[in-house]
């Protein structure tokens, strides 16, 4: 019957017919956030690309790990976006943003070759070309959001997060700040759920995405690991693990769950399976702006854990305020992550 091709009258209608997602994995990355996204099911990448979610515009995904096209045919979409021919598009950036200004020549990270010079086009140049044209920009994973592991003390590239690179007051053409989805890597469904929210917003079906001060979706990162942890009962009883493999609370052997903003203990890693302290892995605070430096060495007891774990029961409000101090520190990026032309990570370059 002809009616099979019609939208039911009650289905929401998108204000735009098509949206392109341009995904750059060429920050200083491991591509782990893209791989994570292939793991998502709420929604899955196929759900979004094949139109299995009502109300969404047609979505064209341009991600190097999944693309059919290769080389110039793949890059063509990026050139088109730069020329304003793919509007509206969402730019997703994966990987830390290196500081290309601290050296005389060459590149730390690049995507594609400049046809005029034969030299690689730096990832920073692509961000500069595309961010002003994008309807919205998502930083996927802790490297792109805050710098992450590659922005560790002593790093040679001077890398940083995308919001830091673009500037705190940066807004997209549609008035959105950078949307940060931290996690090392991103929890699969956290990422796809955020993409879905923004697609609904682009379609005119959602209001502005609610973000906290660190530009994270509030509904995903508003609680701590500890608040969602099924081992918190052991904590409450003062019953702590002293070795790995124990089912008890891990705060005395390195878990930062009480001060890390993350929902992994509630959500699990996939289909409710896996996670971190809930399955025996200390929380190393991999979603946090201060990751990794403020939480290393990971396997030591976090400062404050011995005090708070002794007085936990009777002084709940005191604990909350002490934790908020640690939480505030962990929510700040180290001072060496910046765009200035001098490297201040502690590494002393002799060759560039």
């Amino acid at each position, binding site marked *: 019957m002809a009616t099979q091709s019609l939208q039911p009258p009650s289905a929401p209608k998108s204000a735009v017919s098509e949206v392109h997602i341009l995904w750059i994995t*060429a920050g200083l990355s491991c591509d782990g956030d893209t791989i994570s996204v292939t793991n998502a099911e709420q929604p899955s990448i196929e759900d979004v690309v094949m139109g299995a979610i009502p109300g969404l515009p047609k979505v064209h995904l341009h991600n190097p790990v999944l693309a059919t096209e290769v080389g110039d045919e*793949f890059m063509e979409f990026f050139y088109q976006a730069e020329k304003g021919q793919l509007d509206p598009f969402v730019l997703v950036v994966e990987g830390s943003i290196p500081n290309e200004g601290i050296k005389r020549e060459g590149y730390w990270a690049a995507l594609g070759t400049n046809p005029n010079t034969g030299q690689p086009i730096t990832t920073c140049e692509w961000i500069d070309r595309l961010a002003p044209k994008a309807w919205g920009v998502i930083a996927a994973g802790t490297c792109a959001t805050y710098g992450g592991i590659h922005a560790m003390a002593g790093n040679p*590239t001077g890398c940083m997060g995308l919001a830091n690179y673009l500037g705190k007051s940066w807004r997209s053409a549609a008035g959105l700040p950078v949307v940060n989805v931290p996690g090392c890597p991103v929890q699969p469904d956290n990422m796809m759920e955020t993409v879905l929210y923004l697609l609904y917003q682009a379609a005119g079906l959602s209001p502005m995405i609610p973000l906290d001060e660190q530009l994270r979706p509030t509904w995903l990162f508003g609680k701590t690991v500890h608040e969602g942890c099924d081992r918190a009962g052991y904590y409450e009883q003062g019953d702590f693990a002293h070795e790995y*493999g124990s089912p008890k609370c891990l705060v005395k052997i390195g878990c930062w769950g009480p001060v890390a903003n993350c929902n992994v203990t509630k959500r699990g890693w996939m289909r409710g399976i896996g996670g971190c302290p809930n399955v025996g892995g200390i929380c190393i605070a991999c979603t946090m702006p201060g990751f990794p430096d403020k939480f290393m*060495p990971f*396997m030591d007891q976090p400062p404050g854990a011995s005090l708070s774990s002794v007085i936990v029961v009777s002084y709940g409000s005191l604990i909350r305020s002490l934790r908020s101090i640690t939480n505030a520190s962990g929510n700040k990026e180290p001072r060496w992550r910046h765009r200035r032309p001098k490297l201040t990570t502690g590494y002393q370059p002799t060759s560039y």
Partner: protein
Amino acid sequence: MATATEPLTGTERKSRNLVEMNWDPITRIVGSLGIFTKIDFDNQEVAECYSTSSIFRGYSIFMQGKDPRDAPFITSRICGICGDNHATCAVYAQNMAFGCKTPELGEWIINLGEAAEYMFDHNLYQDNLVGVDFCEQMVKQTNPSVLNKAENTPAPNADKHGYKTIAAIMRSLNPFTGEYYREALQMSRLTREMFCLMEGRHVHPSTLYPGGVGTVPTIQVFTDYLVRLMKYIEYVKKAVPLHDDLFNFFYEALPGYERVGQRRILLGCWGSFNDPAACDYKYENMSNWGRAMYVTPSVIVDGKVVTNDLVDINLGMRILLGSSYYNDWENAGETFVKTDPLGNAIDKRHPWNQTTTPKPQKRDFKGKYTWVMSPRWFDKNTGDHLALDTGGGPIARLWATALNNLVDIGYIQATGQSVKINLPKTALLPETQFEWSIPQWSNAIERDRARTYFQAYAAAAALYFVEKALNAVRGGRTQTWSDFKVPDEAIGCGFHEAVRGVLSHHVVIRDRKIANYHPYPPTPWNASPRDIYGTPGPYEDAIQNTPLFEENGPENFKGIDIMRAVRSFDPCLPCGVHMYLGNGKVLRQEHSSMLGAHS
């Protein structure tokens, strides 16, 4: 002599009409890779190839001064698809340095996690990334006559996998719309659930530590793993015959296809899956516990095992420069390790003694053109610096295991010429045996075929490990982690197989901090550029002299045969490959001896 890769064909004189064709980035791989070629369309072959990576991060630099216990957590972030292989290898290296040993059950848990990683990663790569090169949409664009033939070619194993013709298999591999493509994506998730049961999170595990794992070993966690494993085994019983049909068809439809991606047999495998009864992590005993691994380590040259001794393998490692953006350390850097614990001299170019000094600069294909260095294996018998490849992992693992004839765990039996994989009955399919036999060539098709067989191998190994783990739990042997003290000074090394092949971590500890750390994953071996002796890396070598079967001329050239050659290695820089064709600019015409490996 220093160069070890010889051109496969002679040096006959040919008229060359070379067209420069570049693919940057190469997509459907992990990481940033560019392939720059000169193509001879008159003779339908690739004349020259350069492989370049466009990302530098600096792990070996920023890990200096950090706590060595953090190494598994940090190094996992090297790779976004096999990060856990790094975390595991870092655990192995720290165990050696700290003088501790993962308890039996912890070892089974790591083996189960790593087996799940192989099952997942090969699955996703084979059918969602590389499979696209063999799908109907692609073949229609590149070789319409081959697709026509496929439409009329019945699939010999149709009764096993359900697809009546080869073209039906190709259609099922079309991205997103293909049935098998989507099933593979689902299976890649099921296997990642198995992974998460053992190691907490994919891809950067949460529960691995030096000394073992934090996974809580319950009957439940292993049962949850086992039931998923049996579903995967049922799937593998279809996957292997399906891929055999597809790959055999290419040999039949395109005579000479065995030369695509072919290179001399120069394979490295560093061994996988420790046997807890044998492995004490002491360097002095490494030769023995290396041979006890459930995938046997080896260096294989021209089809023969040169060594299966991890100590020899370790001593032969050399990191060369030549075309990479770094300053040399030969006369500049510190010598951290003069001899190994057995008293063998350690070379200045060995990872223990490497000093990484990046020197960013313009890309110049006549000079320095990549961030990848050139790992080589020094064969003391011949004096060659061998540009070993891993063939993407599985072909080297199966080849080494088959030849050495050491693995016999019932579900898997090495025979000297083959590996037999015995899979039990599953819900709908009977008991099944697969036999992978040593192929005639190290080429693109055989690398891809081995990947599917290794999925079956990993599943069979996991069955063995899960039985061992359940027995340990039932027997009350539930310790998964053992304590240690970080020594003031120590050295350590770990050998493992990342999904794509050889993986080593070398650590030097001073004042309880990391003084030097150098991981060598498979891709530096495979994606390496021309070294100081002019020997090209394996991608370059395999693509050079690859014949072209694509039906498109220069104007619409997709480079599909080159893509199949490079993707057969499962590149993971993390990086990508792009095809930069432009409109086929003619570089030069010349009459000269064959531009080959030594040009």
